[in-house]
């Protein structure tokens, strides 16, 4: 029972989890978010219902709000721009820094052509399978800028510029492999000689001669006449860092840390202080990730600049992901994230007792077992949270879950009703509806709390939390849907008489009533229930205009057997007709069209209990009625588990008695077609029989010509 909350999360929140998908990577509706809430609200304080599966970057932000340190406008906007940025438009391809450099050097006559430059270099054995980006974009940008300046000074056709380019070519030859060091120059323009000394150090750097590079960059830094003089010490630090990372010997980073500290202490090098600080953070993160995370955590808890917040948040979660451990023993932030995501209920409760804020209330309500003596205190605290507070949806949801688990049904129902009366975002509303559905007091409740709003989608479990719009026009138009907490009991335990009622209730949107009328009509036909079938056909004709004409024709048929065949023919002409209501987006193709992924007609099976499904469905009908519903379901399974068999056998039976009926050849063709295009259909004798009858009785018909195979 301790996992009741997780059961809720699985069933009520994760959306439909059908045992079999209807095709590869088709959009599946979500009624709340799994790991990342939508853009535009969360960072601005609308936290919704926090889940332990949320990515840590959201948990950091949640902790700020839950502890009364809301994000500043700059921080929130930097993380989560409002309005969200427009989708990226195709932009003209702009040249890369390498391409810019190659274009720039073409201005210089007489230098050898260079086709391209590989920027990556293989690691040293045993790391030869891993490449690293040896020459970074800035190297090419700076070369391009420096060449332009030298051309201005000496002229593009000058010997000095040609020599400079040759030196730079040698530098970049080392990007991919090898060790090409340009020769030192004497007796030339002092600037060219100074440039060459820098080029030699750079070539050593890229060729992994780090000792040489450190020595020669140091010399450049010591040469006050060199234009690269002020860059020398920073390049020494970069060399030390590069050597440590390429050799994977992080102990060498301490040298880099000392060099960077010296730069930061030197007012002469103010120009490079920002770069040095960035490198210092890089070094600190690798020397002691936990200490760096601790520092970043402290920074994240201080309201401040948006850009700095985003950078710190990225670094913090990057380091946590890399080490898979946060400094929980030294930081409240990391402690809360670890506890909230990690089920440690006793620690959560201990922290809430010591520090009764919303953050620890949320963690405690989530994880403390429902029968723990502290639960009444936690529930009381949850009730005291202001509905305007960021924590309110979360504590309300977990509080109701705990009340349900404790058997406090009346209290839970009243709480859920109050929660639903407050306007919330659709995902939060969906969750409260799910809770309230579980607490249904009867049929009306069951229908009233059923409709959900899809708020996101995934593709067969992949790319969770994608915007609904990504699923295309058909999906975007499905603004109301069933979840499994309705469809599972409805399909299996609700008798047909109630289907007629549900197809007319004002508590359901028209699209959902149409789904019920459609599935109910097929079911009623299969079960030989003409009264319900006619009532549902009338409802369906009103709700789905495209089916009005054939349904009215069916309704006009007075002979029971003829009506039955007419219904079968309509079903075979309409691949979207099925005897079950479906959760989520349902079928994504128009009723009359064959679905590309064989989501056509039906193949029924006993529903498999999804992980975490509550054993008992809501108390929505008296037991005798539910027993009737179960009996009808079993009858449906025994009569028409496979559309292919049912439709083919009904067609064959009619055909044998009415061989002259001009509709029979088409019906036989359609019977064969159902076996071709129905998902999960198992071949039986009926399609073959239909095929044989078609070709033996009507060999010259157009329908026979259209039916070259049976399946």
């Amino acid at each position, binding site marked *: 029972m301790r996992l009741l909350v997780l059961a809720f999360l699985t069933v009520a929140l994760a959306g439909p989890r059908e045992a079999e998908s209807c*095709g*590869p990577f088709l959009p599946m509706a979500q009624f709340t978010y799994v790991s990342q809430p939508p853009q535009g609200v969360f960072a601005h304080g609308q936290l919704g219902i926090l889940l332990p599966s949320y990515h840590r970057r959201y948990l950091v932000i949640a902790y700020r709000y839950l502890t009364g340190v809301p994000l500043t406008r700059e921080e929130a906007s930097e993380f989560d721009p409002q309005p969200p940025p427009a989708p990226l438009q195709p932009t003209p*391809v702009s040249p890369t820094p390498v391409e810019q450099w190659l274009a720039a050097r073409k201005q210089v006559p007489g230098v050898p052509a260079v086709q391209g430059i*590989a920027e*990556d270099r*293989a*690691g040293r*054995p*045993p*790391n*030869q*399978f*891993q*490449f*690293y*980006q040896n020459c970074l974009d800035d190297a090419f940008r700076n070369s391009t800028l420096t060449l332009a300046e030298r051309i201005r000074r000496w002229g593009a056709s000058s010997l000095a510029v040609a020599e400079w380019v040759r030196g730079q070519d040698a530098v970049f030859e080392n990007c991919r492999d090898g060790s090409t060091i340009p020769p030192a120059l004497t007796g030339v323009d002092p600037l060219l000689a100074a440039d060459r000394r820098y080029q030699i150090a750079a070539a050593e750097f890229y060729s992994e001669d780090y000792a040489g590079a450190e020595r020669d960059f140091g010399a450049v830094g010591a040469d006050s006449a060199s234009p690269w003089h002020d860059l020398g010490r920073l390049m020494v630090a970069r060399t030390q860092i590069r050597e440590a990372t390429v050799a994977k010997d992080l102990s060498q980073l301490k040298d880099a840390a000392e060099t960077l500290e010296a730069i930061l202490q030197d007012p002469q090098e103010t120009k490079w202080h920002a770069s040095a600080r960035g490198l210092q953070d890089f070094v600190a993160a690798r020397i002691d990730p936990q200490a760096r995370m601790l520092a970043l955590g402290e920074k994240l808890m201080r309201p401040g600049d948006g850009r700095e917040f985003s950078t710190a948040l990225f670094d913090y979660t990057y380091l946590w992901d890399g080490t898979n451990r946060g400094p929980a023993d030294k930081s409240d932030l990391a402690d809360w994230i670890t506890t909230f995501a990690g089920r440690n209920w006793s620690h959560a409760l201990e922290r809430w007792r010591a520090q009764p804020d919303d953050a620890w209330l949320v963690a405690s309500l989530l994880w403390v077992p429902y029968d723990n003596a502290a639960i009444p205190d936690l529930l009381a605290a949850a009730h005291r949270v202001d509905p305007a507070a960021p924590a309110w949806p979360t504590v309300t949801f977990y509080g109701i879950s705990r009340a349900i688990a404790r058997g406090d049904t009346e209290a839970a129902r009243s709480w859920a009703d109050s929660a639903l009366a407050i306007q919330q975002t659709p995902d939060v509303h969906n969750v409260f509806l799910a809770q309230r559905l579980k607490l249904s007091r009867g049929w009306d409740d069951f229908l009233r709390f059923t409709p959900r709003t899809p708020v996101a989608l995934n593709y067969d479990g992949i790319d969770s939390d994608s915007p609904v719009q990504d699923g295309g026009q058909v999906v975007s138009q499905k603004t109301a849907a069933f979840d499994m907490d309705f469809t599972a009991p409805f399909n299996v335990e609700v008798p047909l008489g109630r289907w007629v009622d549900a197809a007319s209730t004002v508590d359901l949107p028209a699209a959902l009533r149409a789904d019920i009328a459609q599935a109910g009509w097929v079911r009623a036909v299969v079960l030989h229930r003409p009264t319900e079938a006619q009532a549902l056909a009338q409802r369906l004709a009103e709700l789905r205009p495209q089916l009005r004409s054939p349904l009215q024709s069916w309704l006009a048929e007075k002979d029971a057997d003829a009506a039955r065949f007419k219904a079968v023919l309509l079903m075979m002409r309409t691949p979207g007709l099925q005897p079950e209501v479906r959760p989520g987006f349902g079928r994504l193709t128009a009723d009359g069209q064959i679905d*590309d*992924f064989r989501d056509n007609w039906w193949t029924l099976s006993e529903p498999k209990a999804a992980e975490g499904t509550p054993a008992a469905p809501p108390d929505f009908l008296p037991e005798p009625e539910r027993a009737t519903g179960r009996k009808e379901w079993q009858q449906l399974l025994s009569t028409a588990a496979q559309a292919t068999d049912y439709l083919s056998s009904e067609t064959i039976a009619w055909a044998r008695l009415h061989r002259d009926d001009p509709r029979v050849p088409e019906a036989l063709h359609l019977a064969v077609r159902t076996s071709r295009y129905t998902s999960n259909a198992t071949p039986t004798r009926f399609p073959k029989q239909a095929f044989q009858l078609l070709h033996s009785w009507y060999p010259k018909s157009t329908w026979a010509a259209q039916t070259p195979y049976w399946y």
Partner: protein
Amino acid sequence: MRPHKSLVAAGLAALTVCNGCQRQGDPLPGFPRLILWAWERPERLEFLDPRTAGVAFLARTISWSEGRITSAPRRQPLHVPPGTALMAVVRLESHGEPLPATTVVSRDILEVAAIPGVRALQVDFDARLSEREWYRQLLQELRRGLQPAMPLTMTALASWCQSDGWVRGLPVADAVPMLFRMGAGEPRGAREFRVAECRASFGIATDELPEKLPTGRRLYVFHPRAWDEDAYRGAVRLAVKWR
């Protein structure tokens, strides 16, 4: 006695069928029957027994879009025990025409074949219909550019091995049918594929295992996360099961 014509015809037909079904010699001599695909993530495979499993590691990804090629080498570490049979895999990703010059792409692919320790090369490209001739030309260039003893293999959509058969005659030692993450219209389930080039191996994923496989093939196994010892042992069990 002269055999009856129909008997001769039947015998020839049987011979033809048998030749068609016959498995050729091992296209990857020296490689174990189990090969782990090591994708672009840190992979520490020191626990692997080189006599039991080889490694096909993603060495480079070459993509193109609007006429620009991006060639990204592996940036993640790969650790294997000494003696492991290694195959470099190059993934090609096309974002539409124009297709790049095959000479440019083959040059980058051949580079990875030169990585010390690599004993075979595999190209992974879900070529569209319009890209097949280009792909064929690329494979021919690669075959010419490789050392004769270096096997060239490719991954293959199951449909290539079954229904359209365009893989026939490509200069590859092995075309590995990928029986996972399949798209619409792909033939599901393991089977004896019609195309001879596809009969030496199967590609499967640990999170999408087929119920059964024809035995006696080399098994390439993809794992959706970094390999660990448990996943490795599971792959070994699969290889034993379908030995």
